[in-house]
């Protein structure tokens, strides 16, 4: 992931949903979408965290202007 974003751990990007965020990231850093998604869905191994909260809405999760979006490995339950 880091290699794709030019080594940067944080990048600023626009978008109103996680889908748009990923699309814009992919425009700037080609290959990003393939790493995170399959068939317009987040890969099951990937979790998206928006403003500290793990989302169960995946690509449809809305984000706001100041939102922090993180992509993390999905956790197995207990």
């Amino acid at each position, binding site marked *: 992931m880091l290699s794709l974003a030019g080594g940067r751990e944080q990048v600023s990007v626009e978008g109103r949903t996680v889908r748009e965020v990923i699309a814009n990231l992919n425009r700037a850093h080609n290959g990003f979408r393939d790493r995170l998604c399959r068939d317009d869905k987040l890969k099951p191994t990937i979790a998206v965290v928006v403003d*500290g*909260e793990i989302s169960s809405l995946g690509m449809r999760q809305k984000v706001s202007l100041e939102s922090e979006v993180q992509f993390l490995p999905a956790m*197995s339950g207990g």
Partner: protein
Amino acid sequence: MSNASKNGNGNGKYKVIGTRPIRHDGVDKVTGRAAYGIDTHLGGMLYGQILRSPHPYARIRGIDTSKAKALKGVRAVITAADLPPSEADEVLNLVEGSFRLKDLRSNILADEKVFYQGHSVAAVAATNLHIAEEALQLIEVDYEILPHVDDVVAAMRDDAPLLHEDLTTKEFGEDTGKNSNIASHIQFKLGDLEKGFAESDIIVEEEFETASVHQGYIESHNATAEWKTDGQLTVWTSTQGAFGVQKQTAAILGLPVSKVRVVPMEIGGGFGGKIPVYLAPQAAILSKKCGHPVKIVMTRADVFRSTGPTPSSYVKVKLGADNSGKLLAAQATIAFAAGAFPGSPVGAGAVCVLSCYAIPNGLVDGYDVVLNRPRSAAYRAPGSTQVNLAVETLMDEIAVKLGMDPIELRLLNAAEEGTRRVDGAVYPVVGCRETLEQTKVHEHYLAPLSGPHQGRGVATGFWMNAGLKSTVTANVNEDGTVNLMEGSTDIGGSRASIAMQFAEVLGLPAEAVNPMVGDTASVGYTELTGGSRVTFATGWAAYEAAQEVKKILIGKAALYWETTEDEVRFEEGDFVHSTDPEKRLTFKELAGHLVDLGGPVVGTGAVDPNSGVGGSFTTCIADVEVDPETGKIKILRFTMIQDAGTAIHPSYVEGQMQGGSVQGIGWALNEEYFYNEGRMQNASFLDYRIPTCLDVPMIETVIVEVPHPDHPFGVRGVGEASIAPPPAAIANAIYDAVGIRLHELPMRPDRVLAACLAKEEAEAATANG
């Protein structure tokens, strides 16, 4: 704090929540009437048994079942050939993770290879159990034995025997293309690690290993299946999640989920181990072949050898702090033995390892490693205990080196609202600091030790707790009671905690609510009982269902009084006419009028709440006595101080804390898979020794209640965190007692004794030299 709730008189804020009613399913369970999965009995039922591999790793050249099939009383024999073929990249997404379908099928009936001793190879159905057992001995399997690997570090080496030719290491969604037993590598990074260590005045670094341990539930795995001629399959089983069994069984058998109905029977313990499916598909295929229901109950030896233990682990941690004790940097490398197929909880371990503290600079690497042992499964706070031992032992080392009180050191660094965890998540309101503050003033922590070779240790632990989907449906009866159908299988008294949240909303006594666990055909979708989520999420669904019932009943009251809904208020459990205070109906009175007030009163709560990342923190205090002659550790006193959020039924909250504590004690001192040549040597409760009541003292508990900021009643979930810190607390107590540091679980007498002797020798050498 829960001072009032500890007395069972409610905590002042609520009427039902915080009290201790007798659980609704209690009488059935103390009289022997409750029907568990192993108690299932259907007319015409046949008995199934599973043939398992004696070898840790072998290629199956052929299986001859003809002699077994010829045995009188045998009705069917099946092998992997009876399963649908698998596509290489078919994946089944479950809440506990994503798994390749071919791996799930292989674990049910091995096709080309067996990957561990105990791997299921064939299954038999016969008219009784003894004939089925005899038939197993008549099945001839031609094995080509392969060189195996059963140690996590060895399995990671480039020259290790590879388990899966098509397995390549994945790094955060990227396929490295490298063939390896390392199924995945994950990494979390925060701040500037090098700078953090450079600025540190004190750096500690150690390697730790923990043995594989089993959940040790007392009821063996079981499944009874009936495949009817109309193509409908029904499965009765003990499971933590009926919908998960439905999904897994349907996928493994290649059926639509609508063809599979799963009836969750009472379940005799799970702790994560009853999430996977082990027997339902075999019972189903056998039933289809015989035209009878087939019941399979695993032997205890098979439970140990073939069902998911928690991974053994290698964990290396380095911590840096300044002279005040403030942590500046942390690095962790974690390798978990996933067993035969990928999917260990190393991701959770990587989150939990540094989760208790605010550390500005961190790096965590986690490796999921396959090897020739049974596929691992979740075990209470999966992944947290292994990593906790490392960090909490090193925290103790820092405290000793700086001459600090170990609780003060932890308070100085405690995670709190706004702390960014190494995985990037930022904590909302959490109770880490509160558990430490309660520990600091606890009578146990302040009491003097009373003899030689005694020591005291503390440790703090964390589990993240889950939210996930839950459904509850409430039906109001005309006598003022409510039937509550919920989808969460009840392992530890959760019927009561869900019913109580429902009752609280409507001002009912807990006894007026009759909670029942539904099957997959009778209740809305509900995820597994696990992740400390049931009281949180299913309780939330009960809250929503109660709100709907309330709304409907306000309408009924308005109809009864021939007024409008806005004229009706609900207060103190009564429905009241706003402008005519004479008109007041209790819930029961209003229910009694429902006959001619229109349609039924049914409320549903269907939720998918976000549990957030706050989870539950816990701190424990362990007093031990070391026998210097034998190395045996005796637990003298033990206290668990945990943030549960609001405690719904304090007795069962305490019960979770006590149960987790004793499982942690067992992990620390006794429990271990002994392997020799890839074969488990101690597959019985005699040789795999879980704690008995003679091994432990009373487990003291303090319920800390820092309410969850979003949950309607502030529930956090309490089921898991308590297992994480006991091994480290005991290790630190052993150091306090006799000055030795152990880096390997279990801390068996021979290891303790060897370390004591080594210390004596070293001291003698220093004195002489």
